[in-house]
């Protein structure tokens, strides 16, 4: 054995080193984006999650008005963290529809009382069926739905202060 063949292992290792080094330098994105972005909302018709607000059905989305669809739960800690920013969004004119995942009416009511209520409607998704259908893998997540009932954007994780203008912009784009 001689010549160039002896360099093959080193070259293969150099290739691995390059890829691994590149990957290490990249910010790790653990989120799995929904395949539903760009498509129409799946069909659903959810009962109200609490006595004070109406429930929500997919049919209500196709009326020309873009909305935010917030997937949350009263048992979810990051949902408490994002509550003030949902309120900010609502104050700046964003209509927000909620879907409460695996929740109890009394817990939902208590959460809204304690952390504020930005929602026009909250539907109850007791078995995460709508959550899975829409391609969300956790709470909280927020989707932008355009006037034709299409999903145009997915925000994974809690909404932070810097996300508020981004979501408003996406909502404006969806309305245009």
């Amino acid at each position, binding site marked *: *054995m*001689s*010549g160039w063949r*002896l*360099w093959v*292992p*080193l070259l293969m*290792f*150099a290739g*691995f*080193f390059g*890829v*691994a*080094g*590149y*990957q*290490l330098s990249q910010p*790790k994105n*653990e989120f*799995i984006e929904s395949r539903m972005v760009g498509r129409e909302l799946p069909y659903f018709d959810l009962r109200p999650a609490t006595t004070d607000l109406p429930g929500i059905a997919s049919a209500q989305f196709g009326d020309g008005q873009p909305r935010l669809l917030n997937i949350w739960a009263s048992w979810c800690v990051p949902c408490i963290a994002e509550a003030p920013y949902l309120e900010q969004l609502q104050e700046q004119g964003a209509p927000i529809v909620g879907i409460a995942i695996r929740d109890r009416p009394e817990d939902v009511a208590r959460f809204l009382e304690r952390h504020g209520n930005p929602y026009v409607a909250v539907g109850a998704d007791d078995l995460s069926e709508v959550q899975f259908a829409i391609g969300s893998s956790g709470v909280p997540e927020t989707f932008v739905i355009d006037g034709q009932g299409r999903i145009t954007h997915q925000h994974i994780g809690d909404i932070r202060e810097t996300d508020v203008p981004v979501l408003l912009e996406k909502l404006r784009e969806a309305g245009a």
Partner: protein
Amino acid sequence: MIAELGLAALWLAAALAGLQTIAGFLSVRAGTTTELGGLIRPAAVVQGVFAGLSFCALLYVFAITDLSVKLVASHSHALKPMVFKLSGAWGNHEGSMLLWVTVMALAGALIAVVERRLPDRTMQAVLAAQGFVALGFYAFLLLSSNPFERLPIPAAEGMGLNPLLQDIGLAFHPPTLYFGYVGLSIAFSFAVGALITREVTPAFARAMRPWVLGAWVFLTVGITAGSYWAYYELGWGGWWFWDPVENASLMPWLAATALLHSVSVLAARDALRVWTIMLGVVAFSMSMLGTFLVRSGILTSVHSFAVDPERGTFILLLLALYIGGALLLFALRASTISEGKRFAIASREGALVVNNVMLSAILAIVLLGTLYPLLTEAFDIRVSVGPPYFNPVGAIFVIPMLLVMAVGPLLRWREDRFARISREMIVLGAILVVALVLIAVLGDVALLPLLGLAVAAMLTVASFLPLRGRKLTRVPIATWGMVVAHFGIAVALFGMASESAFTKERLAALAPGDTTQVGQWAVTLDAIVPVAGPNWTAIEGQLSARIGDGEPISMRPQSRTFWAPPQVTAESVLATRWNGQLYAVMGESAGDGRWQVRLWWKPFVTLIWYGGLLVALGGVLAIIGRVRDDLKNRSVLRRAAERREDMRPEDMRPEDMGSEDMAYEDMRSEDMRPEESAL
């Protein structure tokens, strides 16, 4: 105070590793015996002592739960049982790295003390390489993962240990793999030392072999134990998931398996020189690559608790330094290593070469499958590679390899004819065909399990054929080792194939009093009760399982909730019978008074792990046989040297020591016997 002493000992050990490297490098370059050369062995020994002291200091601070030490505060808890306090010392990144360097330093000390067969210069190069490898790990510990770091204010209470890790099997599973990895690092040092001095001889192979065998035994045990742990602790019913971290332990094992066969060819027949060196480098590369994949979190895996990208960068740099360096040295030097002896294709060496090629191909398949997501992610495509790739693609090479494994040990060294063993081959072929037809006719079995069952039946017979016609009391221990290890492969293969062909699964929602059927077993949920342990509470399902009208056996799977840190785990329960295991897991409440219960009946599944242990036992027998032969040879040589000394005392100069190697070379004529095992 003890923590500071531990840190000081670690710094001293690192300094000695530095001294060992520099002295080794300089005296190898000088090429003559220098005063510096005399420092190398003592430096290696004292380095081992200091590293050992440092690790003892860490064990001590964990034993007394010294909460002013950051590592203890973040990974231990005063209420934990003592054995888990101690295992907590290495159940975390810093501690496990310290364990790694300690074992490495102790192994270095051991070769410095006992290994006297190799020429001085090669030995110096080996110890210099070993010191250099250790130095990188010391730097890693001291610069970025100091295990003895103090907290400014002692913590009030520790933060516990991951409850999934609070398990006796797991307490000893990572150290076992580490011993294997470290053994391969010694083999790596031997390979680098030999590349530097270009001395690739049978004596070199013999010096390297116990380390390869030892590493291989530890890896075998580690993988077997890890597989069993995943099987009963994760509660998913599977025993191998092709998870990146499992692959990370499998790849060094594959490389070590290839290496131990090729090192045997080198030791017995002075062939496969360059290939053996290459495998020595590859085997350690695979263990470092495994460490990198686990620690950097670059691939998502069930072992995600160990992740930190900064550490990943450090390990990647070490990887570049050692593996890149060794491969560069290989590229520059390998062509100058003279060719070994030639052999015919129909020979023991020929079969071992085929085995090596197959093992390397399997290694390449596993490596590709493991790294493929990393590669595609660079182009923003996310994929996950799983059993649909690994099982069939691996089988393409595993099955031919097992067929060669059945015949290879029957062949003679150097040159043989297949016609000589035609009778054995016909018998084995007949068993294979009959088993295939019988199983295919009698049962509804998928292709891979069918092949697995038939090959297992054939291998069981084949593994004992090398003993045929021999007086069993006179068979060398190392040959027994080969027989037992090959038989272990047959046993494990049978378990795997049986599990995948005949497993019965049932997921049922049961209210107390309900009964469900899985395989032959009728399982009744008698009651649901809450239970409390030292640091957890649980919901326990009281099940009774029976076959027909037989005596019912009681099974109590739990769904446990730990407090510190809060976490829910499924505590599965296994009922083992001679012909398989009944596996029960408690699920969630269905909300209407019923509970999810998952049940499996897995025929002969335990053979997977018994087979693994047999393989390891074979390795242990091989080590015993080899080391005993070495000691015998050494005492013969010493007596011969004493006789010479008696005759011509004035002629006994240092350079005469070289003749020891020549005398040793003569000794190996016994290795040429055809019946000598490959292991």
